[in-house]
């Protein structure tokens, strides 16, 4: 399946965007979880706080659907 | 067209006020903006952007005929060469969106320049098409 991942900041460098400046198109077999996708992309999942798609927070055990666009949000300090 | 206000989306950031005064007065001075942001706090906790809806009541009331539909897409605009700053338009405005400021030569109202809609990031201020009214 194909999934689109978006991120900014340092996480973006690890994502290696190829669709636009934030977005990477990634092909992977089966219907993996976000965690499994991150492992396949060699992104340490400690650097991802959660996914975000269709206006909702997605935990790392979320399984994206075909063609879904998921933002990867890194952890950061609040105030 | 007109500016549609969705108050449920307003966050009180005042970007609209800043760009308004930059555009019209070449200044950063929210108190001179043609849009005010009402704030009802602590309860119910709601912001309300308030700006001219181009109803024309001010134009009809102006004793100097200084307000005419000469603005962007038929917006009512004050002609500073005719305006005496008498303030009748401010009293007449049915929804209280004709503003004033000590440094402004005329009362202040929205002229549909639409800059505020370009900077608003929440959808509180958007541009919608409407058929032009045939009043006046």
């Amino acid at each position, binding site marked *: 399946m194909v999934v689109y991942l*978006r*991120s*900014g*900041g*340092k996480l*973006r*460098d*690890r994502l290696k965007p190829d669709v636009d400046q*934030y977005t990477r198109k990634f092909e992977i077999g089966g219907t993996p979880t976000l965690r499994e996708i991150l492992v396949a992309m*060699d992104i*340490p999942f*400690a*650097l991802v*706080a*959660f996914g*975000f798609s269709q*206006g909702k*927070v997605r*935990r790392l055990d979320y399984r994206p659907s075909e063609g879904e666009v998921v*933002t*990867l*949000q890194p*952890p*950061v*300090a*609040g*105030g | 067209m007109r500016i549609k206000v969705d108050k*449920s989306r307003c*966050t*009180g*950031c*005042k*970007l609209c006020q*800043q*760009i308004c005064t*930059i555009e019209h*007065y*070449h*200044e*950063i*001075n*929210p*108190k*001179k903006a043609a849009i005010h942001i009402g*704030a009802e*706090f*602590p*309860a*119910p*906790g*709601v*912001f309300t952007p308030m700006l001219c809806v181009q109803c024309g009541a001010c134009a009809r009331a102006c004793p100097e005929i200084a307000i005419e539909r000469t603005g962007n897409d038929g917006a009512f605009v004050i002609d500073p060469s005719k305006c005496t700053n008498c303030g009748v338009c401010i009293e007449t405005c049915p929804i209280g969106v004709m503003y004033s*400021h*000590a*440094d402004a030569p005329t009362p202040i109202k929205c002229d549909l320049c639409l800059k505020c809609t*370009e*900077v*608003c*990031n*929440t959808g509180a201020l958007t541009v919608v098409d409407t058929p032009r009214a045939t009043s006046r």
Partner: protein
Amino acid sequence: MYGYGGTIVRINLETGEIGRSPTPETFAREWLGARGFVAKTIYDEVPRDADPLGPENLFIIAPGVLTGSFAPCGSKVGFGCVSPLTNGHADSNMGGHLGPELKFAGYDMIVFERISPKPVYLFVDDDTIELRPAEQYWGMGSLDLEARMKKDLGEDFQIATIGPAGENGVAFACITHDFGRQAGRCGVGAVMGSKKIKAIAVRGTRSLPVHDLPGLTKHTYDIIQRTKTHPNMEPWQKYGTALFVSWANEHGCFPSRNFQTTVHEGWEGISGEKLAEEVLVTHKACFGCWMNCGKYSRARIPGKPDAYLEGPEYETIALCGGSCGMTDIHHVAYANYLCDNLGLDTMSGGNIVGFAMECFQRGIITQKDLEGHELRWGNIDDFEHFLRMIAARRGIGETFSHGTRAAAQKLGRGTIEFAEQAKGMEFSGYDTRWYSAQLLSYCTSDIGAHHNRSWAITADIELGQDTPVGKAPVVIYLQHIRPLFDTWPCCRLFWGELDVTPEEHAEAIKYLTGWAMTIEESMRVSEKIWNLTRAHYLERNGGPGRKHDVAPLRQLEERIPNGPAEGRKVGTENFEYMLNDYYANRGWDRDGNPTREVLELLGLKHAADNLEKRGLLGKPIPGGIPKVRGQKLKPKAM
């Protein structure tokens, strides 16, 4: 001068005299604003033995060059003084709309001296500055008073208030504004209260003088359009900082029950999603911010009146929530409201109540101390009763009103071992046993344990959580770049979240002032301030510096009992290693004292002379100080 309000105000509260002078351009350029203005003024003018709650301390309000400027997120205003918690330099800033209003009124700094004989509030209306009677307001809650003053003076006034806690001199009292923004840390509210200043009301109707407005407008307009579609924009707009509760629990840095462990049972009940589902009323923004991270909420608890508040933020959820054993977002929101209205920092407040809860758990304090009440984990009624005792400094509340360290010193019985604080100011919302760079950050911070100075959590992940190696240079870099946002000042979340670079923030200064000021120059200002406040701290508290850069025993030696970080601790040896590395990289000696070489390089010869007179100057470093102090984190090669 462009970019600034133009006038500095000095008020003698004893005599009522109000003096104005033009803001010197050299002063503005050298110190920029907020934290910088505060550091310079406190260092130069407050006697080293001044009581923080006495007449010789100063209370300073200062926006800065980026405030009210149409530069991204120019909302901030700084407050400063000598802190009653740490006995050192304090600055704490808030967003909202007060800072911009001061700039539009034409002011860059207001310095309050001495103590007013009666409660007053500061009234500023463009050129008019008055100290007005505030007896009728004394005793009111912070939020309640703001509502009242908006009615009394008008909606277009920006108001900041202290609550009863600030009036009573509780050491971690805060200042509240815009129904929920705070200058929370360092006890700035206590100093404001010690001077009998109940509130500040400002209206400014003038415009900000700008050197190149078309340039500035285009600069910011382009950033607005670019960041609208940034991947992080939507989650931040929707959830704000509360969204990190899940990550912190999943990665073992969330404080649970006074940092007894680092994954909180029931954290799902106090997550960002729960906030959005259950208590959120509206999204709320600071001046000039289009990310609107503020979450205005309503807590509903049966038997209690509805409580409106801005929050709870991640920090409040961590400290009033996890650290006090709570599992219901309504309870955390209500705790937030209590702190805000009483005028207490939710971070220190949550930390202290959690500490007291552990004391109760261990039988060190009992129902007899608590006026017949208990202090059970997660119990909002117990939390409320005890918080009110602290705010009133009543009974044992008096002991805790001086902060966790002071309370532990008074209680004895080994309580200092589980008091999570550094230099007398309470840890913010991160347990550091698996995040040694964060522990180093907390313990070397000039204002005590606050992550605004350095947030190194992802640096720990990138560099390796189980090693102390390589942490110090990164912490130093963060201690320069993060407090730079407290100096400009502007919100650091655009840099942190939306890829707006420090260079772009510095560029805005050029359009505003006409100064060709690079980011390097700004960073140099930040490093200078860091060393100045270090010198100030040593002059007030004695030395050597190393004696003060101390970590809580729980973080060093008590292994986390369960969860993702089970078994972790930093270890004393690792901490000492990091401190040695830190001092060497700062150009300080092994005792943690700044050397003459680094101080003079930064233009602080007078500070070097002062330290030398007191025997606190760092010994010269053989081979000289590092050419560059601090290093930006380089992510591991992929």
